[in-house]
């Protein structure tokens, strides 16, 4: 049991609903800001608004770097993010506008060549006057080396602090010298070391951006090399040195790979001021660096009682530098007609053409940013404004004005009935609040007081609180607690109804909902009548698609029989047979050996004997990143894991040992082969030579000409526009080719011949051609679909219908809900999103149960095992709602392995496996865990699962969900507990035998 009062101290940002915070928020209107200044490009990134946004979260979002494009030179980008939080209360919306602006910093790169004391020796100095961490990336060309332009310099040339980059380059950081701004690096050249030229580019380490000379490398050539006659391209050979464009190859490759957080594009102009000095040399190159600056504007409104009347108090705050002028007015109805409110106006306000007011924001204390407070009579329905920064920059909302609705009488009416109930209480409270505008300053202390009251852990703070303030907040706390209790009680299905069949009325689909969610209701499988789950939609308290059982199984023997009948022969791509146990057959480093397919083949039979039925292989396609998740040519199956022959060999081997094979299909994005006219990488090559119409339009970095994305964008590569029919057809064809191979050969052959006629056939395509002519199929049995958040689940359904996989699972990974740094107990919204996605695929694909993983993390880390039961007494993850489509896992190549983005509590993995391997859903075991010291324990767990015929739809009866222990009985055959606490299965009709016991877990079998 949790004994602390969950009273967040976030009153200023999250005004608590009083007295009953019904979560009836005003629908979010997406705000877009355009910046109509002299900037030549603007982009918009709209983030999903969060209704209850903690300040910390808001801040982190604000800091989130937004632009990723590196293939996007000469563009200035402004991005705005608006997070709007609202709650129903006397305090109304809080808008937080994040402005990400690019600021141009102009500077120069100086290149100077000095003569040393010995006339044959020279000294090359490269410096830059823009602040930042600069690195000189350089290499040399040797006199006698004809083929290579870049090579490692001799040791005596390398300045201290340099790092060699492979065999051809050196990176040397620039160091500060000559005052504050200038950074430089110096390279000494000896006459006798046979160097004909030095090539370099400058790299900004903070952003990973390369600065070049008109898009080329800098090159400094030396006279003697000219004399040697090896380099005929040097301009002005008489002068013996120059800057000239060099080879792009290596650099551009890196350029592609680097993922910069900030978009910095370089624009450099070479101003050649060649000097007629025979041996000395000085060159300046102007560059501009675009720095992304995050600013924010926050607008909060609240009701106040002031001199007898209700007033709206609007508070502006921004950290935009310089003079910021608020250009504003009010309106009375929805027409949004500007009107000037009657005085008094805030100080520094001037009337503008009788239509608007201009208020100069006043600098805040401490000098950073500015703010203003505007007080309005309550009569107005809305507040309209635009912001003006400096002379030319206006901030608007999609070209229109910002509009903030003020709580109109209508809005009040919405919450009116709530307030009525406690009129006596609240009347008093509000009056108190009005006297003290800084009321919320007390909030923290009050929250502590409440906490102390409950935990009887007094602190000294409470002595300072004034008597009336706590009253109010304690009442708020009471109301909040009551509302919480109400919501849980209301949504609970009382357990005493279990002897009867599970109340069909409660889950009946209402007609309207059924219409709205046609897919959810058509999932019914023929066997539904017996033991098959049924997807239904429930309106209360929120629309959810979930799985419920139409009948509860009473007689175990009979039910097993029935299950065998119904589940045995039935294969559904979302579930397989229902008895699948998945093995993730790789980790983040598996590509490193270059022969993973062969290595995995060695353990195939071992995996089979462990009890796995399905293995998930890494992405097979050519990829920009070695791990395979940045695919380029989909038909090129040579990857860092092995070539197509090895892959087919491996698949064949798995089939021999009775394991189905899932291919990792990356359908969301694809890396381009070519740049468009703007230099943006969005033209594809290879077999599927799509143009930019296959790229979604709403990621400005890739200038796609397709439609808007049907999901979230993955910013590192062009996102594929699945709404284009040709794209879908191509992808379906590809998936079919991957699974069955030959049927598409004719077509592929034809297209390749077309390719042939076009300009070039690269080696990949040649390899592909060879592979195709061998006419062997790859033979995947199903898919693991990468980043399915990026596109609509309905497309997935199409792909699955076309490729008819044995099993399919999508990776729908988004963040759990966090409240003040802790995960909420209730992750229904999170699993709802996953369930919605599964629903959109019509149940043709399962999804990884990220919710369960997240909750397991918290249950184990914080010893809060009560989290493992939801309010209905079911598992709290996707597995509690739609077990047959839930693929439970505790770790994968992203969350664990060498990446560790979201690692399972260290050392507690077996608790996780004890949970997922005994529970319904299809469990997935991570490769790293199989081949670790957990191996025998995992093997035992799998054998228990198999022996007791636990399947993806098994029933869970939670016996205990307490602070330190979670216990459940599955199918009345297996009892399990995790956590340090004690549990013994109830000795009733069954006799329980301990099957395995490990660190903080125990599993029993009924005998």
């Amino acid at each position, binding site marked *: 049991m949790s004994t602390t009062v969950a009273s967040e101290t976030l009153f200023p940002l999250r005004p608590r609903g009083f007295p*009953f915070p019904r979560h009836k928020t005003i629908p979010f209107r997406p705000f877009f800001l355009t910046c109509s200044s002299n900037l030549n490009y603007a982009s918009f990134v709209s983030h999903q608004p969060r209704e209850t946004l903690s300040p910390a979260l808001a801040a982190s979002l604000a800091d989130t770097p937004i632009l990723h494009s590196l293939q996007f030179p000469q563009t200035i980008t402004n991005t705005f993010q608006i997070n709007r939080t609202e709650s129903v209360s006397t305090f109304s919306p809080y808008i937080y506008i994040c402005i990400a602006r690019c600021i141009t910093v102009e500077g120069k790169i100086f290149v100077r060549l000095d003569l040393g004391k010995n006339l044959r020796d020279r000294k090359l100095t490269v410096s830059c006057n823009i602040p930042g961490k600069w690195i000189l990336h350089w290499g040399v060309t040797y006199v006698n080396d004809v083929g290579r332009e870049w090579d490692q310099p001799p040791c005596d040339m390398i300045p201290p602090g340099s790092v060699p980059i492979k065999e051809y380059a050196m990176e040397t950081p620039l160091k500060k010298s000559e005052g504050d701004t200038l950074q430089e690096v110096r390279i000494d050249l000896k006459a006798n070391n046979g160097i004909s030229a030095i090539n370099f580019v400058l790299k900004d380490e903070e952003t990973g951006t390369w600065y070049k000379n008109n898009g080329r490398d800098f090159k400094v050539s030396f006279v003697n090399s000219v004399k040697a006659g090896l380099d005929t391209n040097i301009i002005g050979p008489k002068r013996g040195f120059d800057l000239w464009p060099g080879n792009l190859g290596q650099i551009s490759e890196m350029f592609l790979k680097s993922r910069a957080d900030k978009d910095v594009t370089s624009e450099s102009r070479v101003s050649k001021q060649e000097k007629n000095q025979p041996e000395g040399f000085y060159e300046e190159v102007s560059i501009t660096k675009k720095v992304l600056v995050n600013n924010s504007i926050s607008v909060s409104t609240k009701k106040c009682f002031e001199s007898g009347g209700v007033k709206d108090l609007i508070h502006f705050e921004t950290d935009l530098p310089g003079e910021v002028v608020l250009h504003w007015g009010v309106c009375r109805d929805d027409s949004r007609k500007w009107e000037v409110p009657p005085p008094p106006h805030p100080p520094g306000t001037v009337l503008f053409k009788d239509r608007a007011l201009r208020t100069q924001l006043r600098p805040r204390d401490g000098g950073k940013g500015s703010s203003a407070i505007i007080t309005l009579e309550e009569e107005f329905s809305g507040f309209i404004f635009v912001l003006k920064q400096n002379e030319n920059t206006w901030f608007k909302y999609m070209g229109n004005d910002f509009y903030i609705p003020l709580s109109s009488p209508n809005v009040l009416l919405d919450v009116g009935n709530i307030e009525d109930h*406690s009129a006596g209480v609240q009347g008093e409270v509000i009056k108190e609040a009005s006297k003290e505008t800084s009321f919320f300053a007390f909030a923290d202390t009050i929250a502590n007081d409440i906490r102390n009251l409950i935990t009887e852990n007094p602190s000294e703070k409470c002595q300072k609180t004034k*008597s009336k303030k706590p009253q109010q907040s304690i009442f708020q706390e009471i109301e909040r607690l009551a509302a919480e209790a*109400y919501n849980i009680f209301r949504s609970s299905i009382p357990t005493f109804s279990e002897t009867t069949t599970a109340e069909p009325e409660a889950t009946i689909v209402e007609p309207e909902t059924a219409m709205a969610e046609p897919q959810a209701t058509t999932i019914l499988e023929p066997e539904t009548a017996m033991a098959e789950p049924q997807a239904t939609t429930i309106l209360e308290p929120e629309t959810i698609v979930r799985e419920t059982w139409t009948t509860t199984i009473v007689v175990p023997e009979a039910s097993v029989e029935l299950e065998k009948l119904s589940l045995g022969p039935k294969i559904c791509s979302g579930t397989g047979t229902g008895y699948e146990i998945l093995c993730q057959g790789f980790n983040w480093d598996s590509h490193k050996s270059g022969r993973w397919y062969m290595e995995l083949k060695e353990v195939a039979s071992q995996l089979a004997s462990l009890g796995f039925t399905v293995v998930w292989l890494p992405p097979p396609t050519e990829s920009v990143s070695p791990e395979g998740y940045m695919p380029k040519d989909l038909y090129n199956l040579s990857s860092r894991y092995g070539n197509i022959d090895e892959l087919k060999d491996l698949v064949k081997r798995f089939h021999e040992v009775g394991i189905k094979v899932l291919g990792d299909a990356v359908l969301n994005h694809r890396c381009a082969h070519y740049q468009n006219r703007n230099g943006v990488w969005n033209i594809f090559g290879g077999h599927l030579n799509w143009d930019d119409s296959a790229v979604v339009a709403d990621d400005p970095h890739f200038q796609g000409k397709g439609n808007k994305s049907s999901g979230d964008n993955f910013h590192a590569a062009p996102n594929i526009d699945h709404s284009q029919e040709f794209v879908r057809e191509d992808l379906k064809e590809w998936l079919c080719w991957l699974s069955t191979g030959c049927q598409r050969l004719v077509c592929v052959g034809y297209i390749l011949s077309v390719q042939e006629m076009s300009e070039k056939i690269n080696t990949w395509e040649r390899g592909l051609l060879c592979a195709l002519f061998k006419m062997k199929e790859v033979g995947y049995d199903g898919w693991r679909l990468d980043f399915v958040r990026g596109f609509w689940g309905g497309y997935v359904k199409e792909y699955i219908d076309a490729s008819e996989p044995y099993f399919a699972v999508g990776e729908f990974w988004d963040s759990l809900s966090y409240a003040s740094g802790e995960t909420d107990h209730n992750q229904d919204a999170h699993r709802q999103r996953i369930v919605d996605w599964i629903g959109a695929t019509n149940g043709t694909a399962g999804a990884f149960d990220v919710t369960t993983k997240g909750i397991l993390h918290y249950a184990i880390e914080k010893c809060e095992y009560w989290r493992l039961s939801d309010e209905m007494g079911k598992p709290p993850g996707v597995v509690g709602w739609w077990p047959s489509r839930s693929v439970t896992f505790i770790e994968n190549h992203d969350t664990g392995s060498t990446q560790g983005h979201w690692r399972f509590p260290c050392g507690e993995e077996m608790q996780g496996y004890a949970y997922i391997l005994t529970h319904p859903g299809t469990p997935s075991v991570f490769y790293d865990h199989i081949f670790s010291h957990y191996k025998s324990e995992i093997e035992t767990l799998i054998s228990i699962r198999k022996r007791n015929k636990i399947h993806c739809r098994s029933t869970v009866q939670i*016996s205990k969900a307490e602070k330190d222990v979670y216990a459940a009985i599955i199918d009345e055959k297996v009892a399990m507990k995790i956590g340090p606490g004690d549990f013994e299965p109830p000795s009733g009709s069954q006799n329980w035998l301990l099957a395995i016991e490990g660190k903080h877990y125990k599993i029993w079998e009924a005998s």
Partner: protein
Amino acid sequence: MDVSVIGSSQAKLGASELANREHGFCNLKNNFRVLNDRVSFNRHIRWKKAGLSFTLRALQTEPVEEEKKRSGSGTRSKTVDGVRLFVGLPLDAVSYDCNSINHARAIAAGLKALKLLGVEGVELPIWWGIVEKDAIGKYNWSGYLDIAEMVQKVGLKLHVTLCFHGSKKPNVPLPKWVSQIGEFQPSIYFTDKSGQHYKECLSMAVDNLPVLDGKTPVQVYQSFCESFKSSFSPFMGSTITSISMGLGPEGKLCYPSHHRLPSDGKTQGAGEFQCYDKNMLSILKQHAEASGNPLWGLGGPHDAPTYDQFPYSNGFFTDGGSWESTYGDFFLSWYSNQLITHGNNLLSLASATFGDSGVTIHGKIPLMHSWYGTRSHPSELTAGFYNTASRDGYEPVAEMFARNSCKMILPGMDLSDANQPKENHSSPELLLAQIMAACKKHGVRVSGQNSSESGVPGGFEQIKKNLSGENVLDLFTYHRMGASFFSPEHFPSFTEFVRSLKQPELHSDDLPTEEEEGAESAVMSHESSVTMQAA
């Protein structure tokens, strides 16, 4: 010793904490100042006084209470501030199926809300059918222990109701093994004239018969109570301050005479006598033979109506009907005495078991207010209370409670005559008054309850009226926590109710009555010694 800052309802907590944690005392005061201020909405509260009187009340034992009454009445009129408020936890707080807490988070939140409101404690129904579900003597208290711990952590008191009956809503039957016995031996249940068994409670006729695997129900109940006592020993007397003994159908001391709901859902019939199980009939037979009228022992009254029949539809309850005859008196005396004997059996068992645990024992009787306005009081008669226009049937009941030093729980405090259907001749107010008068006469303290979960119109007003009168009430349990309790339609009026309970006391405190000081300091010195003793 600085007791001056202890606030109202929390005083008890502070004081009992004192026993364990001396150091906590002065720290607590600040919190309580806040709390009290919140509850009372009063700036000028005089802590000293409120704190003292409450401290006392919390720690009262019988002799002290008597003294308090005497000393207190002189200085202040007794107002409702003396009533401690409890709220019932959901009936299904612990699930029947897996013995774990149902909607634990909701309960946790609810407990905190109640604590902050200034509620004294909560009532927890503990079901025989859950704890001793599978086999005789095999108890599983885990779910209930968890709740007790929750309650303790929040700092509320706990009133435990031991339910030796079953229930349809929530579906908690009698223990499985008892039901199995009942299948072969249905005579352990109450039986009506038509031979139908009431399977949610054992007949009181088997109290001392070894029908349960060779043990008598009383022995089984006793073992249950003893197991409860030892299992909850860490809470006894501290968190658990009182225990209700289940006495019959729905926990109340009565026959299940009205277990069939009226068909129109409103007008209640006379109810039906429940003396037709084998054992009951044999007792009746013996009794009739002993009294020299063996023919009277062959069955119940032949002319009594059935459950929802109009009382006058047969001869028994009509004016001048059988009930007024010698036979009627014979039967009704026997019938009601059986009930009192049964109540005495169980309450003496409870007193003996829990007498040294620092808890008070309660028993609940029903408020059979239908037909109270008639001479024969049919509803009460069938339920086992031989109370008519010419006979006070509650005096022997109150006397029985007094004999066992038990407190009486009276439901229906929210019912007003005005809201009763006219045709029923119903009068909950008069009946309550009669029962409370009987209790007062015998020195039995009464705990109030409201009648139902769903709010009765004007219920709070009626409760307040009942609480504020000069009566024997010292505790009120409000039923029951759940969705509707916390609903926006209900909870605000409940908070209002709680506030209003505290309000009158504060008015009197507001008055700068200097002359009270002397009396108070006398009280104070007396009480602080009590506190010290308790500590």
